[in-house]
């Protein structure tokens, strides 16, 4: 059937089969997303960001859920609050008063509104001080909306210093002591610093079921002394939230969105290139095998049989274990290993039938050469028959790439869906309950596979009249 009509009929049929329509819409969405990624976020930058290490992402919460999670869970989980003396804000006040000689008094107030119904995941303070020899000395105070004022710690600052409130042992002891005294307990209880700092001090604070978050304006006050003339302190307060962006973050505070975004074009191009190239190469090999017959056929068939006996996936695993290569070299390896795949056998059977068609005989009778017959007469007739299979196999290769990455054998650089799952598994994400981390890449994998499957099955119906439902 001519190509133009084919396409016209194909479109007609696709609209007839609702599942194909769904598949096409899904695939278009995925492709749109991939194109958006490619144009908006250069690959080099994505790889650099992905491999940058924890320092880069220090302002991000760890294990943050995606923000849209509230659509399902409800509530108002905290987002990350960052205040810094380097930024212009009326919530940050820094006063330096000379006291005597080179010494000055410094006071920094950082105020912020906290109106969420859950505690922050962490609270960190980062200091950046300038001095020659004499380190500044400061005290950190926390003032709750209800006026309670706690002096958390005194610190002699190094040039780059930090105060991780959530994990600081002194702070923990201090807070326990305060609670013991205020509530008249016999021994100091273990209180999570975030819970203490963001709740009113009462009996409830001991019971995680009853305790509530105190909403209102909080102040972090840092007071201290600078001992040199040009000495200065910059402070950054990070109150880490529990949600981040549209994809959340992983154990390294990295936004998972990087890999989710770039995983799409990589998966599509890997899957489509592998499926189409392998399909075409197998078809050409099969056509040559069937048409020439004799020794050529024998040779090709024996190679195929040997190749079929070799287990594809274990060999691929072995190769990827020995050589760490980029995803595109992996693609070449996959193509090389699949060239003489099962397709050669089944396509050859089609070509053997076709070989006997009168029009092929006619072509011989008017002098067509062997190559002309293979490429002008045999392949164009079979091509439509193998397209559904090609489309269906895209999903296979998308999964293959992901599977290698999940096993830690994929491209070490590329931010892919499989890589995200691999990271999640290594961190025990499911064990710790971070389902989003696995579900996001996994569901994209499944959606991609479904979209190709829906389209492939319909194409099969279109090109293979025996499956047609009319």
């Amino acid at each position: 059937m001519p190509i133009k009509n084919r396409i016209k009929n194909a479109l007609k049929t696709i609209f007839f089969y609702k599942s194909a329509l769904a598949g096409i819409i899904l695939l278009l969405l995925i492709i749109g997303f991939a194109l958006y990624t490619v144009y908006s976020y250069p690959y080099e930058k994505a790889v650099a960001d992905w491999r940058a290490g924890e320092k880069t992402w220090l302002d991000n919460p760890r294990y943050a859920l995606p923000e849209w999670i509230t659509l399902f869970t409800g509530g108002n989980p905290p987002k990350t609050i960052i205040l810094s003396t380097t930024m212009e804000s009326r919530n940050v006040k820094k006063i330096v008063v000379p006291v005597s000689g080179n010494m000055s008094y410094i006071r920094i107030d950082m105020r912020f509104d906290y109106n969420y119904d859950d505690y922050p995941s962490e609270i960190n303070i980062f200091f950046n001080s300038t001095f020659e020899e004499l380190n500044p000395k400061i005290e950190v105070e926390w003032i709750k909306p209800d006026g309670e004022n706690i002096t958390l710690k005194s610190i002699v600052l190094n040039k780059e210093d930090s105060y991780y409130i959530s994990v600081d042992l002194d702070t923990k002891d201090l807070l326990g002591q305060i609670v013991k005294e205020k509530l008249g307990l016999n021994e100091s209880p273990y209180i999570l610093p975030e819970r203490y700092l963001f709740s009113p001090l009462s009996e409830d604070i001991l019971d995680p079921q009853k305790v509530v978050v105190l909403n209102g304006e909080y102040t972090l006050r840092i007071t201290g002394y600078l001992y040199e003339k040009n000495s200065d302190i910059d402070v950054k307060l990070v109150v880490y939230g529990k949600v981040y962006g549209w994809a959340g973050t992983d154990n390294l505070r990295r936004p998972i969105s990087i890999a989710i975004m770039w995983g799409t074009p990589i998966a599509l191009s890997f899957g489509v290139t592998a499926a189409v190239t392998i399909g075409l190469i197998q078809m050409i090999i099969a056509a040559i095998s069937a048409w020439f017959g004799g020794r050529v056929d024998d040779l090709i068939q024996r190679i195929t049989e040997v190749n079929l006996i070799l287990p594809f996936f274990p060999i691929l695993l072995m190769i990827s274990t020995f050589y760490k290569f980029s995803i595109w070299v992996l693609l070449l390896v996959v193509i090389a290993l699949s060239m003489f795949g099962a397709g050669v056998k089944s396509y050859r059977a089609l070509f053997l039938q076709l070989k006997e068609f009168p029009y092929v005989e006619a072509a011989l009778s008017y002098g067509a050469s062997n190559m002309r017959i293979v490429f002008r007469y045999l392949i164009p007739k079979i091509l439509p028959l193998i397209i559904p299979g090609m489309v269906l196999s895209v999903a296979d290769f998308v999964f293959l790439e992901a599977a290698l990455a999940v096993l830690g054998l994929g491209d070490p650089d590329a931010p892919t869906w499989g890589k995200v799952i691999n990271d999640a598994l290594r961190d025990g994400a499911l064990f710790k309950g971070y389902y989003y981390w696995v579900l996001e890449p996994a569901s994209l994998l499944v959606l991609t596979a479904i979209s190709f499957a829906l389209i492939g099955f319909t194409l099969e119906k279109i090109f293979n009249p025996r499956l047609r439902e009319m």
Partner: protein
Amino acid sequence: MSGERLLEVTGLKMYHVIRKGLFGGKFYIKAVDNVDLTLDRGEALAIIGESGSGKTTLGKTILRLYEPLDGKIIFDGRDVTHIRRGELKKYRRETGFVQQDPYGALPPFMSIRQILEEPLKIHKIGTKEERLEKVYKALEEVRLTPVEDFINKYPHMLSGGQQQRVVIARSIITDPKLVIADEPVSMLDASVRVEILRLMESIQKKYKLGIIYISHDLSTTKYFSSRINIMYAGKLVEGGPTREVIYNPIHPYTRYLINALPDPDANNRFVKRDVPPGEPPSLINPPTGCRFYPRCPLFIKGLCDVKEPGYTYVNENHWVKCWYYEENR
């Protein structure tokens, strides 16, 4: 029959090889066994036989789609029996082939224009414009007019008769001297058969084309060929001018064949036809001597089943290979 000799086939043999099993021996299907025939320029010859008689193999062997096992094919004064490559390609340009199933004979994914251009491209005939001109001319020749209505269509959009016209146009587009038409109308409706045959006849006369009609149907070839050869089990058994063979058949097989064919007549239903017993022999292991003897009522024991009959001439142009006739003339 006077005229310039176009084709002369002598002692032609073509056996198909089949292997049984991995270690089994070879078997030969003796599809064409010792066939002689001649064809003059501009002449229409019919070869009549049942399916499995080897008539299609004979046609394809003459076209050199098969390599003959033995014998000679002299075409236009040249020996083409075993030519290869360049010479074979040249021979392909000088011959045309019309097959039985017109839809199957046309690549379904090519437009009519592409289909007709293929032989021209293969033989590097003309420029692009000249080729298109030739395509137009060929389509006009087979009366697919106005050409514009057909040239960009695909085979499945045409009726069987129109498809067969395209096949005919393709077979004559390289200006061949010989066309072999293998059951050109048997898949078509009765009402268009005559039309297609008339068309072939007019082309044949116009271009002095030699045509070999291969058919199982005596009654159609009667009107479209001047000479007729009857083939049975890989051998030609009788030949001569068409009407002479039909009105005065000598070979018992020919007689049966003619007898078995009804003409439209209401009385047919009251009479039974005289049909020989049995079925045509296997060509792997055909009978010795005359291949028709196991079914023949005139069979002479010790002669027909031993020795192959030779040519016996009924008259100058009409010959038969039959011991009974030879012995009883």
